[in-house]
C-alpha cells in the first residue's frame, strides 16, 4: 500500500495532537472535586481524587484506581428502553419493590456474572424519590469474586440508577463508604 502525502498528513497531525494531550480523545478521564450538575438530569458530588470519564450526558462513570478495581456508574435511562439482559422494559406504575425484582432478574441474566447472589434488598430514598437498594455478589470468568450495590428509582419516564462494583477482596469494602456518601449527595433534577 502506498501512503500518499495528502492522506497521511491529517491523520498524523491528529494522532500527534491526541498523543500529547492537546486534543482530548473521546472518553477522556479527568479528576474534579466538586458538585457535578448534569443539566436537567441529576447532580452529584464527585469524590476527591476519582477519575471521571467524559463527556457526561446521560451516563457518568467514575473510578479511583481503574474500572477493574472499582467503578461507579450513574445513569438515566428512558423506560421505553428494554433492560439489556432480560429484554423487558420497566413500567411507569411499578413500585420500588417491583423495579428491584426486575433489576435483579436482569443482573441474573447477564452471562458475564456467574453465580450471582442477591445479598440484600430494601426500599429507600434515591435522589429525593422512592427507590430501592440491591446488594449482590458474583464471579467473573477468571473466578474473581465481585460485589455490587445498586440504587434505583423511576421518575416520570426515566429510570435513574447508581451502581458501584469492585472485587470483594479489599477494594469493594474499602471504597463502599465513599460510594454511600456520593449516593447521599445524589439529586434528581426535573
Amino acid at each position, binding site marked *: 500500500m502506498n501512503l500518499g502525502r495528502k492522506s497521511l*498528513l491529517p491523520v498524523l497531525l491528529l*494522532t500527534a495532537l491526541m498523543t500529547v494531550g492537546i486534543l482530548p480523545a473521546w472518553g477522556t478521564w479527568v479528576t474534579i472535586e466538586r458538585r457535578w450538575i448534569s443539566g436537567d438530569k441529576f447532580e452529584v458530588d464527585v469524590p476527591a481524587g476519582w477519575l471521571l470519564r467524559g463527556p457526561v450526558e446521560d451516563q457518568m462513570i467514575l473510578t479511583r484506581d481503574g474500572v477493574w478495581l472499582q467503578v461507579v456508574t450513574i445513569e438515566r435511562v428512558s423506560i421505553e428502553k428494554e433492560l439489556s439482559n432480560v429484554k423487558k422494559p420497566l413500567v411507569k406504575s411499578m413500585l420500588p419493590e417491583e423495579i428491584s425484582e426486575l433489576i435483579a432478574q436482569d443482573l441474573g441474566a447477564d452471562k458475564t456474572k456467574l453465580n450471582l447472589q442477591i445479598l440484600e434488598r430494601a426500599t429507600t430514598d434515591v435522589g429525593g424519590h422512592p427507590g430501592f437498594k440491591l446488594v449482590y455478589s458474583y464471579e467473573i470468568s477468571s473466578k474473581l469474586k465481585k460485589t455490587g450495590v445498586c440504587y434505583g428509582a423511576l421518575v416520570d419516564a426515566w429510570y435513574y440508577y447508581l451502581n458501584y462494583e469492585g*472485587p470483594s477482596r479489599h477494594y469493594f469494602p474499602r471504597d463502599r463508604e465513599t460510594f454511600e456518601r456520593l449516593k447521599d449527595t445524589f439529586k434528581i433534577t426535573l
Partner: protein
Amino acid sequence: MLGKASRNSARHPGVRLVCLGFVFLSIGCVGPSFLARSDMEKRIGAIATIAILPPSVDVYEIDLTGTPKRVDAWSDTAREKVWAAAATEMKKLKRVLVTTLSPNSLSESQRTDITESQLVFEAVNASLLWLTSSAHVPQFAEKLRNFDYSVGNFAEIGARADALLMIRGFDQVSSTGRKVTNLIMVSAMAGAAASRMVLIPSLSLGQSSLSVALVDARTGEILWYRRVFSAAGLTDLRDPESAASLMRRALKEFPISD
C-alpha cells in the same frame, strides 16, 4: 513493517512525516520503569524475609486465524520455570532470607488466600497497564506518582514472611502453521517492496510479559511493582533460559540489593 524504500522515497516529506508520527506514538506509550509507594524506602528496611508465592501464568497458543487458546499443560510448565527463575534470582540477595511457598505446605484456606490475592493482582495489573499506557495524561501521571495499590490482607499466610513476591506471567505461542505462514508472507512481500515504500503485512507472533510485585505480607499493600514485555515471539516462558532472561529483566531495579 515498512518495506525498503528507494533513495528518492527516503528523502520524500512523506517518509519524514511517518517517522515523526511514530515518534509521537512512542512518546505516548512510554511509562515509568517501575512503580513504588512513596514510603517504600522506609518500609523495606524492616524486611528480613521474603516468600515467593507460586506464580500465576497463562500460556496461549495462537493459531493461523489469530485465535488464542489457553493450554493448561503449557501454563503449568511455564509456571514452574518462572517460579524457579524467580527463586534463582531472588536467592542471590544476601540481606534477606528468601523462601518459596509451596502449595503442598499450605492448608486449604491458605491456598484460597493466595488464589484470591492472585486474582486481585490480575485486576491491579490491568489497571496499571491502563494508567501506564497513557502516562502522559496528567491525571494518570498523578495516580502513578501517588502509587497506592493492594492485593488485600493476607489473613492466612501473612505470618510466613515480612514480604511476599507475587508474579503474574502471560505468554502467547504461535502455532507452527502461523509461524510458517508469517515467514512466507514476509519473504514474498520483501522482494516486491524493494523498489518503493510499502507496508508489509505480517502476522503478530505473540507477546510475553511478566509482572512482579513486592507486597507487604500483613497488609497486602504493593510496595514495588514492575512489568516487562517481550514481543514478536522472542520469549517462551516454558523454556528455562528464556524464562530466566525475562525474570532478570523484571527484577532489574528491585529495591532490595546486597
